[in-house]
């Protein structure tokens, strides 16, 4: 059974050299600055704990710099927590920057192979997904042309088709991804809903309240690196102060 368990996760990271601590530190957004042992650092996450089981759809909300993306990156494994631990059972896939690693000079087909390898797919998996990806992207013969001949919309279609061609057990998303023109957007939305339906666990960071309402059954609100609120989604959206929440309407 898939699960994610974050236990007392804290993350501190060093500040760039030459950074003046006195000039900052009391802003409304971002982590907290501090100085211990002479090294200035940011506390991006502070004692974050929660557990997710199969079927859980967690929405992470909070103002800019509250730690939403940082939390996702810790869950994914890009950042190692300074203290605490993250235990994951199941394969974790992330949809962060779907254009990462595209090579302009290589053909669309070659880019599918390269992205697949980077995602950790075996050659067999890449072969078996190749046709689906090409078909979904609707690129036709362009798939054998170098990526530099693509329009921005075309390469986004390809990126989306590759990124969503798997069946994730645990899916981490920093904002909902959509792509392309009107016709493709509908297709992309359907594909995303399918993935969400199939995945064991979803963690979605977003400001879009109606999306969170539709997708999530649980909400964690981050505030300066701490969990400020944690509970069922309907309870979160129906709480008395919900009208003045930081989420964008619609």
């Amino acid at each position, binding site marked *: 059974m898939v699960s994610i368990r974050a236990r007392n996760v804290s993350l501190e990271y060093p500040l760039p050299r030459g950074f003046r601590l006195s000039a900052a530190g009391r802003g409304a957004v971002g982590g907290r600055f501090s100085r211990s042992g002479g090294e200035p650092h940011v506390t991006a996450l502070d004692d974050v704990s929660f557990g997710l089981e199969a079927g859980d759809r967690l929405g992470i909300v909070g103002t800019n710099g509250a730690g939403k993306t940082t939390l996702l990156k810790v869950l994914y494994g*890009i950042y*190692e927590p300074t203290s605490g631990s993250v235990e994951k059972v199941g394969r974790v896939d992330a949809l962060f920057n779907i254009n990462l*690693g595209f090579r302009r*000079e290589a053909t669309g087909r070659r880019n599918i192979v390269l992205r697949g*390898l980077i995602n950790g797919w075996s050659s067999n998996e890449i072969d078996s997904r190749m046709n689906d990806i090409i078909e979904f992207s609707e690129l036709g013969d362009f798939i054998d042309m170098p990526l530099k001949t693509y329009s921005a919309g075309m390469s986004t279609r390809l990126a989306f088709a590759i990124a969503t061609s798997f069946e994730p057990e645990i899916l981490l998303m920093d904002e909902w991804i959509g792509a392309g023109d009107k016709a493709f957007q509908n297709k992309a939305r359907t594909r995303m809903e399918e993935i969400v339906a199939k995945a064991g666990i979803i963690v979605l960071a977003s400001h879009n309240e109606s999306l969170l309402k539709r997708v999530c059954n649980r909400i964690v609100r981050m505030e300066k690196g701490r969990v400020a609120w944690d509970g069922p989604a309907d309870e979160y959206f129906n709480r008395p102060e919900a009208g003045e929440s930081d989420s964008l309407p619609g």
Partner: protein
Amino acid sequence: MLQLLQRAFADIGAAFKLKGVWMALASEDVADSHRDTLLGRLWPLLNYLLFTGIIIFIFDRTAPGVNFTAYVAVGYLVWQFISETLTQSASLFIREAGFIQGTVMPISIYVLRQTMRTAIRSAYALIGAVPLILFSGIEINTAMLSIVPAILLLLVTAPAVAILFAFAGVFFRDFQHIVSNSMRLLMFITPIFWVRGDGGGLRGLLYHWNPLTHYIEILRQPVVGGGVPLSSWAIVLACTAGMSVAALLLLGKFNRRIVFWL
């Protein structure tokens, strides 16, 4: 310390499991630099032959007891490998920032990708070097067998240097500029185009105290008939061992932390 080494080996082990990734990326890198050109992958080979050809033609070929053609052919081949490793490594993690911040691949993967790319380019140059050396009139001898371990040693040293330089380049951003500016100077103070002569004076000092000399000599001496240079071997083995330990410790300490400095 044991823990750091364990972390480092775990990182390297994970990278070797993903060898499809770095081998594919390295060959793309090489292909990219010559795509759409008429001569394509012949360029590294031509580049090498043109440069060594000119050097052999204009420099002093009358050094006593030295086959200058073979001397330059091997020296420049190894130098290209060393030079590309040093300059590319200093900016390695900075160039790969997008990947490091966006994927969970072990960072050794970028080191192996770069070593592979440099090795592929050197292999193309080697295609030019072999006939050049054979036609230079050298004699085949048993000491030449030591070329195989010498190549292996270079291939093991390159990732260690790459790790050290790549971390240095992130922590100290001026480092990559220092390295790229030093390379031209290094090319002249390293015995590639000049021969040590009778062993004295400034040339002798530059020859002996420059560790790069010895990395070149372990390949060059057996080719030009100087036998297996045992003292050079002792020096390079000590250097590589020291750098490898330092590289492993750095890798173990910062492999998952470097992302915060990018």
